[in-house]
């Protein structure tokens, strides 16, 4: 949902108080483009005073503006040019900068597979990947699989076999299955689970996911 409704925006408290110190604009350049994924660190404040004071020192040193770079990514066959913090993950750039939210953030540490994308056809976890390193590479996300209204055979098979319930892991499952069938077009049944084991499904639609991949095998 993207609403266009306007609100009377208030100023940040720091501006109201005319804070001195780090230039807000300088900071924001980095701040805005920094990956949301960096917020993955603990929010349990105050336990480790060491951690707390470290961050305070960092901030007090007015953090030299983080490096940003204009990069061009090829996503689903389209060139996308955007300013990114060089530390930003490909997942955050896809979701927050390019607006492709089909790729999901389930754990942000490479354990769940919800962010699986294809890079030059290979399965890749977007949450563990720095966006700035992936210029000149072909990136495919879930949004790039269908051709117009024609679903990719793997997508169609997931629908027909009911290979999902809540659907949150489904983008990753489908992209992973497409990658798997790229790697092994004739993958034997017995090897499908091993090769799909990086994609968690808490609804445990696993039997239907396996069935969908069998159906799609040989149709790609």
């Amino acid at each position, binding site marked *: 949902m993207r609403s266009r409704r306007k609100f009377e925006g208030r100023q940040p408290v720091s501006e109201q108080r005319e804070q001195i110190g780090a230039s807000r604009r300088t900071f*924001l350049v980095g701040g805005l483009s920094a990956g949301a994924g960096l917020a993955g660190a603990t929010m349990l404040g105050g336990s480790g005073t060491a951690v707390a004071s470290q961050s305070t020192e960092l901030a007090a040193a007015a953090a030299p503006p983080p490096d940003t770079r204009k990069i061009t990514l090829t996503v689903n066959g389209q060139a996308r040019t955007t300013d990114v913090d060089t530390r930003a993950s490909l997942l955050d750039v896809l979701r927050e900068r390019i607006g492709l939210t089909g790729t999901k953030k*389930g754990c942000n540490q490479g354990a769940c597979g919800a962010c699986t994308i294809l890079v030059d056809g290979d399965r890749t976890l977007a949450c563990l990947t720095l966006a700035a390193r992936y210029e000149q590479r072909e990136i495919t996300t879930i949004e790039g699989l269908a051709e117009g209204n024609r679903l990719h055979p793997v997508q169609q098979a997931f629908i027909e076999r009911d290979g999902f319930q809540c659907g949150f892991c489904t983008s990753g499952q489908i992209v992973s299955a497409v990658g798997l069938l790229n790697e092994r077009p004739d993958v034997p049944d017995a090897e499908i689970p091993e090769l799909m084991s990086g994609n968690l499904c808490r609804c445990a639609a696993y039997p239907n996911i396996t069935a969908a991949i069998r159906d799609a095998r040989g149709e790609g």
Partner: protein
Amino acid sequence: MSAPANIDAPTRDGVGDSPQRPDGIGKVTGEFAYASDLWHDDMLWGATLRSPHPYARIRSIDISAALAHPGVYAVLTHEDVPGAKYYGLDHVDQPVLAIDTVRYQGEPVALVAAEHPEIARRALAKIEVSYDVLEPLTDPRKAAFDATAPALHEHGNIVRHQPVRFGKISEGQRAAEVVVRGEYQVGMQDQAFLGPEAGLAVPTEDGGIELYVATQWMHVDLRQIAPCLALPEDKVRMTLSGVGGAFGAREDLSMQVHAAMLALHTGKPIKIVYNREESFFGHVHRHPALMRYEHGAWRDGTLVYAKAEIILDGGAYTSSTMNVVANAASLGVGPYSVPHIEIDTYGVYTNNPPCGAMRGFGAVQACYGYESQMDRLAAELDMHPLEVRRINAISQGSVLANGQVVDTPAPLAEMLDRLAATPQPEPADQTDIRNLPGGAANTTHGEGVRRGIGYGVGLKNICFSEGADDYSTARVRLAAVGGEPTALVHTAAAEVGQGLVTLQGQIVRTELGIERVVIAPADTQIGDAGSTSASRQSYMTGGAVKVACEAVREMIFERAADQFGVPADELSLAGGKIVAQCAGVLAALADFLGTEPIEAVREFHHRPTQRMDPVTGQGDSHTQLALCVHRAVVDVDVELGLLKVVELAAVQDVGKVLHRNSLEGQIHGGTAQGLGLAVLEEIQVVDGLIRNPSFTDYLIPTILDMPPMRLDILENPDPHAPYGLRGAGEPPTLSSTPAIAAAIRDATGLPLTRVPIGPEDIIHSVK
């Protein structure tokens, strides 16, 4: 159900078919918007500072440095809560933001709104909270019985003590020829949905709030949110966003009030998304349980008494502990006829993480206890585990521990027979290492692998119990759209993946004989639908959609009877047409409707239930009961402690199959979560601190852990329920855990009284 279903002229994709999910295309193309995908121009990001301590007094909170941080719009504490400072699902005891005390690690203390989540995180680190750290109360038994333990709440540490007194226990104890006793434990399980807690709060021009969130029950959220914001309920408008799994964890509030507070304060839209670690602190978990059981029987296996003490650790706040206690108590001996019963179930407060709803809700823990006992009794009597269960199995007419007579089909003996007749899987081909426990990680040639077989039986209550009138509401509007009769269905019921939106369409097609159905977004602009929990939405919201359709149908028939001079009771709807028994097709519905849509809003209520008596636990407390049985075949490498669940077979009575694909998915999913509890999943809590809040340390079943399943689905209708259906999502979660544990015991010969069972439990016990 008084009105007959309109099933004479079956419509394609109606009740009993397996149509595709209406939200399916969006989910396979990435277009479906989950709560974490929401975006609003000009929005800020909210973040939550949480307590690092399980128990502490707050001396002071200094927000000045955080407030001064560039890009920060607001830093809020309890002083900024506009209205009520506390909320709660059943009992109002949980602070919106900690006031003077924190009672669990992860309790929210302060909020930040900033231009970017990274700025918010940095600002959180600048909030200085001064704590007086206290010794946490983490032993639930101490909380229940030790009067010297510190009282965590004004009324002490016992949330609810529910006794059950049925028959006369002393008579049973005199009559028993054999007695088996056991102590069992269940660890703390997490729902671990993949879509983290998230939502968007948008301030409105009238001073209210629009909330887009992933939740299980919008109206109960609303009843808690509005008082905290000091707003009337009609100024808090909620819309369900895409829900990435729930399993009970979204029944309590998470970020709802926090986002709304920040939005009201800043005048800007606020988005909050928890990350995975925060999610482990941001919702309630399954209650860990300490259980003592004693069963007495005759030598022929007939049970004569059962005695149990069940302690459920509710953690720091009440959440749904009172109802979890009621389930564990009333279902404490399971689906067995026992003439004399004495159960004491306690739910207690501790400084451990708060626990509440998770799939199976109190019945899971008790099931693990009584099923472990049934195996112990079978061993004591040298009987087959299925035989001892069959001898004592309930059937229609039996009496449960709460005195409730089972007044609908309960074919447990038949289910056990069918399970016994289910073919066994072949021995594993050990020449392929992937078939060994541990798969490619197994370093042996399978010399230590033993196969075990185990059984589990579960009894789950469906819908809310104990006098709750958990009704649902539906609006059905039938109109001609583009020359086609089209129904719009509007409810507040949460689709969380179970397929409720699919089912709503099926019911409308069946009842109105049309094809086109549109499901409106779920929001609070219509009456309460109750919770997506207790396996109740097919029954309740399915029931509401059905009665709304019946009302629409009656209005059509009344109007048509006038118009065509045909008695209303001779009319039916089929293929988008109004049909009379003798005269055939009277009119196409689209022509008949013209520009005048027909609309009905109806509530559906289940039959009334009673509270359990506070002293005896007696009372007809349950709306509906459902049975599931499992057989587990497990290969265990007794030297390495590794195991592989080879196959799970399930027999479940669902009353009526409404959508076979969805149903099978529910049985797969429920079974897998029971498997997780049996062998993988536990939140490790040490001194009140969670040690494994990540998917690298908290393991849920992968596709490799999921064994092939054999499903045998029975349809013995419940005459009280729409279409005769029985709720189906939870029962398989009960019985798979004890079945797998029993299979591991069978393979190893070890007592293994605690779940989850890990490799260390096996190798450290094997001689």
